[in-house]
């Protein structure tokens, strides 16, 4: 009973956050709602007993990845998105398709899903067990993902680092200065103020 209540509570927060992510026009709000979703998902993990997963979810996802998003939004000073009609396909075909798929899956799960039910803290994923599994059975994938991370870091550095040529071109053509910290001219202040 308590389990169901807690599940519904955090599930509701999840749903609210997800929907908010969609309806909000400003990316920073979407980011925050996504953080909310992640936090409540961590709670759901705790309900399922995956406490370590929950902690890592909070630390890595909410604490690191989303911070990156927020920093990027602040760097690029992303304003509210303008509602351009770029793609009819996405609206006319994609959205119905996604909804249909969702309805089908939900219907199948609720009517025909012969899955049992889980108790609170069903599978205690204690750090020790996780570590044992991760460093024995899944050692190779673990190492491979570490390499992947390394490559990703290099790629990010290369992509985000600005070659001097680009810098010069931007400065010549009155583009904002290379260093991101200093790109926040006053008119934009007013402009972004209007945006809200």
């Amino acid at each position, binding site marked *: 009973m308590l389990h169901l209540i807690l599940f519904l509570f955090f599930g509701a927060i999840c749903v609210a956050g997800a929907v908010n992510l969609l309806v909000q026009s400003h990316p920073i709000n979407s980011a925050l709602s996504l953080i909310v979703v992640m936090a409540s998902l961590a709670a759901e993990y705790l309900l399922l007993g995956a406490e370590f*997963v929950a902690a890592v979810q909070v630390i890595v996802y909410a604490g690191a*990845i989303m911070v990156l998003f927020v920093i990027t939004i602040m*760097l690029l000073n992303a304003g509210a998105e303008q509602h351009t009609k770029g793609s009819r396909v*996405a609206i006319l075909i994609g959205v119905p398709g*996604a909804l249909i798929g969702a309805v089908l899956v939900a219907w199948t799960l609720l009517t025909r899903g012969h899955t049992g039910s889980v108790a609170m803290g069903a599978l205690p994923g204690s750090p020790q067990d996780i570590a044992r599994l991760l460093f024995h059975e899944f050692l190779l994938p673990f190492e491979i993902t570490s390499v992947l991370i390394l490559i990703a870091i290099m790629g*990010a550095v*290369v992509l985000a680092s600005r070659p001097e040529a680009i810098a010069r071109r931007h400065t010549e053509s009155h*583009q904002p200065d290379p260093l991101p910290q200093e790109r926040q001219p006053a008119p934009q202040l007013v402009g972004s103020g209007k945006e809200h």
Partner: protein
Amino acid sequence: MVPLSYYLVLSGFLFVCGVLGFLIKRNIITIFMSIELMLNGVNLSFVAFAAQWHSLSGQIFVFFVMVVAAAEAAVGLAIIIAVYRTRETLNVDQVNLLKL
């Protein structure tokens, strides 16, 4: 006791929200966040199944998904910054040079 299907439906809902976000949002960063949302939905289903079948492998998968998501976030945001430098916009509808 909560039916596992509830968790699955929740994860499915999150996933679909991600898809819809990808479809209807114009801001690259928001679209990127929708991807993260999808990944989270998948993670939830992983954990739920792990609880269902009593095998921690599901939770291990969540870690791998997180690692991939982190790498993806790093590279993806770098790409977004590069795009913004060149195109001066974050609106995907205006970043559509890749066509005939």
